[in-house]
């Protein structure tokens, strides 16, 4: 039975601020499945920490940073606005990336995509296997913390693989539209896989939600 994992503090992360009532605060999305649903590929403890602690912190800190940014805008303080950019990029990127990531995974996932997405993969990478190798290589190769991505290059009408450092959002930094992201920050796999990032990357293919990736692809092409 699928149930949605809800972080206990997910809905009350930021204090209500009346004077900013016109702007919608960001909130932690519920997971579309239970914390244990992705086992044995990603264990429940990782999923809970990843969602409830890490993603929640990005949401919380994004809201705080945006409040400060609003204040700096209101005062016309450009220096303060610039100083807040790294925090906006980091926390904003973290919120965007993780929100996509949870939908990219599913306990019923795995296998291969079908239809137009599979055709596009074969067209742009040669075969599904070659695409898989390329995405895995990009993800393994991230030095430090970051993400491996399958993205869509709207200008060329092509699928493209990219890696982004830290929480840099794919679209915001490269222009590619994110379809499938693989979190290779150590918090995403360390408790289960320790230093063996390649083992985590092999396992994650069993839970890729190709329906979601296809939906995102179809939306790009419009």
């Amino acid at each position, binding site marked *: 039975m699928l149930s949605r994992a809800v972080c206990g503090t997910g809905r009350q992360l930021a204090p209500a601020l009346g004077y900013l009532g016109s702007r919608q605060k960001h909130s932690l999305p519920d997971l579309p499945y239970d914390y244990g649903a992705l086992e044995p590929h990603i264990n429940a403890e990782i999923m809970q*920490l990843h969602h409830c602690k890490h993603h929640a*912190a990005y949401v919380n800190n994004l809201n705080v940073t945006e409040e400060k940014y609003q204040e700096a805008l209101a005062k016309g303080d450009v220096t303060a606005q610039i100083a807040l950019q790294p925090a906006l990029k980091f926390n904003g990127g973290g919120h965007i990336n993780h929100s996509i990531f949870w939908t990219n995974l599913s306990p019923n996932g795995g296998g291969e995509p079908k239809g137009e997405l599979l055709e596009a993969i074969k067209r742009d990478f040669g075969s599904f296997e070659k695409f898989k190798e390329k995405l895995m290589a990009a993800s393994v190769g991230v030095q430090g*913390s970051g993400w491996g991505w399958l993205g869509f290059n709207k200008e060329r009408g092509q699928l493209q693989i990219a890696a982004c450092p*830290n929480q840099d959002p794919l679209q915001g930094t490269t222009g590619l539209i994110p379809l499938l992201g693989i979190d290779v920050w150590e918090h995403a796999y360390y408790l289960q896989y*320790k230093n063996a990032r390649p083992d985590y990357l092999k396992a994650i293919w069993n839970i890729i939600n190709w329906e979601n990736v296809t939906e995102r692809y179809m939306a790009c092409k419009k």
Partner: protein
Amino acid sequence: MYVHIFILFFVDPNRSKFNSKFNFYPFLRTTLATIKKKGYKCDNSSYKCIFKTWRVTELWNTKPFSLIKLPFNPENMRPFLSTEAIEYHYAKHHAAYVKNLNNLAEENCELKKMTLEEIIVLYNGVIHNNAAQLYNHNFFWLGIKEDGGGEPYGVIKEKIEENFTDFQNFKDQFTKEALSHFGSGWIWLIIKKNKLKIHQGHDDQTPLKGAIGHPILTLDIWEHAYYVDYRNARIDYIKEWFNKINWDFANYNLFASLEGQC
């Protein structure tokens, strides 16, 4: 405690010095000699057997780069670090950099005659990454000890008071820097133009490249350094690190940085 700082310099078998002219190996050797005096041998109850279980002992003798012997008993670093955390960090992560750099030295022979510091300053990319991470992890392990922590003493105490008013304020500042770093990296206490500073190094960055400063202490804030014991609570890991700081190592580095200045 300052005696070892004045020991004459030995040839550096690990091709690493922690500054341009001083060799940290006298420091390491005296530390290990102290351990040896206490009569540790690898019997069933000795911690040295751990290193055989971890399969790192061969890496102690590889060339041109080798894995340093941990200057502490991995079972005695709680609550800062569990034995399990140290095993993964030392025997997997740190060891991998040794193996990688030796492989790179096979393909790039000039590396065989260089120190880690030289490689870090002159190279970028994968060679820099492995040399820097090897250096960083050496520095981190040497900067902690079983009976470490407490108030600083010696010249480092004076410099901390001079630059941070007092030890508590230094801890507050260091904690703030370590918490605010986005992503992986190392938080360094450095000295530059006779001033102590805290420097955030992203990913594999050291204060050596770009002559940012002379390193005194470092704290690893890659997630693998604290996740096993603290999960996402980096703040608790930082608090416990202060209780294990090897102030002798800090004083050694401070002394080394002042070389040439009377």
